[in-house]
């Protein structure tokens, strides 16, 4: 019995941690992209996630739209918002020291979070579906369908993102601008537009992640800060701007939290995640997958 439980519990925690990690990766991947390409730490990223969740929720409640479809609408909306923000606001200070953009996005996050508080109220929401809490059973290990879906979407989108960035002209423009903006502009790339595209893309990814978060759990505007912090940790773990790195970082954090919860206590989960962060930084300052910082900036 005891050994049996140990094995089952370990498997269960591992599966759960991996699924959770995949979703966290999707939350973080856009954040990492923006940081890597433009050297902007976007403190408003978490509020994009929550805004995405609200859009998904509104569509579900008022139009009966399944979140799997709603997430595309949310992504489109956030893309437009993100594009506009970068094009007409953040671009104004994008050459300033990093603290300036940090402050700007901090101001944006105050604006967004309190704005959502006023518009949607601070009530907790969740997007209702028939399938999200059903589980598949393998022996005694249960795999929740909603989380599995979210995980699948996260991995799929990350892979697709890498493909887009590596194989399309726009994607290559993003990489080139991230590597050397001056040279890219000489080649005829419109850096302002490319930056705005990148930011819009990042916001769209956050919106998709947000819709998934809303489907498998609860959210309200105050949850935004937590997602920003997680993105921070995961992006650094994976190496900035590295999309596969973000996936790996997310999975690692998911696993560490699940195992810490199982073997220590639920209260140690975050402590272990930050311990891993500090250790990785001390041993491999450029992240798990990255190279030295600037060389790794847009390593895709």
């Amino acid at each position, binding site marked *: 019995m005891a050994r049996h439980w140990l094995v089952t519990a370990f498997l269960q925690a591992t599966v759960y941690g991996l699924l959770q990690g995949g979703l966290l990766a999707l939350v973080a991947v856009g954040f990492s992209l923006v940081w890597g390409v433009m050297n902007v730490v976007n403190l408003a990223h978490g509020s994009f996630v929550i805004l995405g969740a609200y859009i998904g929720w509104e569509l579900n409640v008022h139009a009966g739209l399944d979140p799997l479809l709603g997430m595309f609408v949310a992504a489109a909306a956030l893309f437009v918002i993100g594009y506009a923000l970068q094009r007409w606001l953040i*671009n104004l200070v994008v050459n300033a020291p*990093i*603290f300036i953009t940090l*402050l700007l996005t901090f101001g944006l996050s*105050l604006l967004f979070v*309190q704005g959502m508080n006023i518009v949607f109220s601070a009530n907790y929401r969740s997007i209702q579906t028939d399938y999200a809490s059903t589980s598949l059973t393998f022996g005694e290990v249960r795999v929740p369908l909603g989380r599995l879906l979210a995980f699948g979407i996260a991995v799929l989108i990350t892979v697709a993102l890498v493909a887009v960035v590596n194989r399309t002209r726009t994607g290559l423009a993003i990489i080139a601008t991230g590597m050397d903006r001056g040279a890219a502009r000489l080649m005829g790339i419109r850096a302002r537009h490319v930056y705005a595209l990148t930011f819009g893309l990042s916001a769209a990814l956050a919106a998709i992640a947000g819709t998934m978060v809303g489907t498998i759990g609860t959210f309200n505007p105050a949850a935004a800060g937590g997602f920003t912090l997680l993105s921070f940790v995961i992006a650094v773990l994976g190496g900035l701007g590295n999309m596969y790195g973000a996936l790996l970082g997310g999975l690692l954090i998911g696993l560490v939290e699940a195992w810490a919860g199982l073997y220590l206590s639920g*209260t140690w989960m*975050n*402590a272990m995640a930050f311990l891993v962060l*500090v250790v990785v930084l001390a041993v491999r300052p450029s992240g798990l997958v990255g190279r030295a910082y600037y060389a790794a900036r847009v390593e895709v």
Partner: protein
Amino acid sequence: MSDLNETAVEQRTPRPVEAPWHRFLPWGALIVLMLAMLGLQSQLYVGQERTVTTILMFVALAQAWNIIGGFTGYACFGQVVFFGIGGYATAVMMVHLHVSFWLALSLSGVGAAVFGAVIGLPLLRLKGHYFAIATLGVAEGMRELVTNLPRLTGGGAGITVPTVGEDATTAYLGNDGFYLLFLAIAGLAVATALLISRSRFGFALRAIHQDEDAAAAMGINTTRAKVLAFSLSGLLTGLVGATYAFQQVVIFPDRLFDVEITVLMVVMVVIGGSGTVLGPLLGAVGLQFLSEYLRNHYTNAHTFILGAIIIVAVIFLPQGLVNYVREARHSGNFSLLANVRRFRL
């Protein structure tokens, strides 16, 4: 990262010969200001003592961050860890060891400084963002650690400093007492920044900010300078945290290690003008006053408005108020629009 300070240093290089009294002017101003604040407390105004006390606290915090973040250019994103350590060290010592507040305050300050040196040695090897995140990780990790030692720290339920009855080791200072204590700490922080800004040590820190390799080549022991700056900044922040804990009576890990407090320090320093003595002072007074005002008058939308104001300030004054005024005086060009153009893509 260095645009901001290059200009500041360029101006400083052709150093004009000054009247001897000129050197003492800032000190004189500081002393007069302190005296004025003393006067302000004892007889001046109605009903805002606590507000001013909080402003003084943030002056000290902003100035402390300025030493590592502004002068040295190391973006410490986990500065609040010193605040939390100072606060919890004081509370734990007063509760479990029954020491007086004054002893606990001193030990907490020293403890925060030592902690700064210990984590500074490995972490200050990291550059730029990585330093920022590593310190953030330390602060968040420390919060979790404190939360998970309930026997010692009370955990998530908080810890109460004894202020009444037999367990009270030091009589509660009262609002007047905390006003004076925070005034003293704020004065100490400003004086420290003034001292640093005109000393060889300060020039070493600025050199590190500009180009660390070049500074090392010039014979500056960069590791020692950085660790010293970090530790000093930790000391000041720790003192504030310790006083804050006694003032609050009850403290909770979520607040004592709240990343928002770090962000506030950074915002105040950057808006005022980082790497200057006056900037953080103005930034802290201005921002704290503003947020109090907004909270009083726009109870439901104050963070919204504050966010908008920060955005506008950042767009128009990216180098901070003090640096802007200085540059504008230098060049004779006060146009804010030119200012916006400067970092635009």
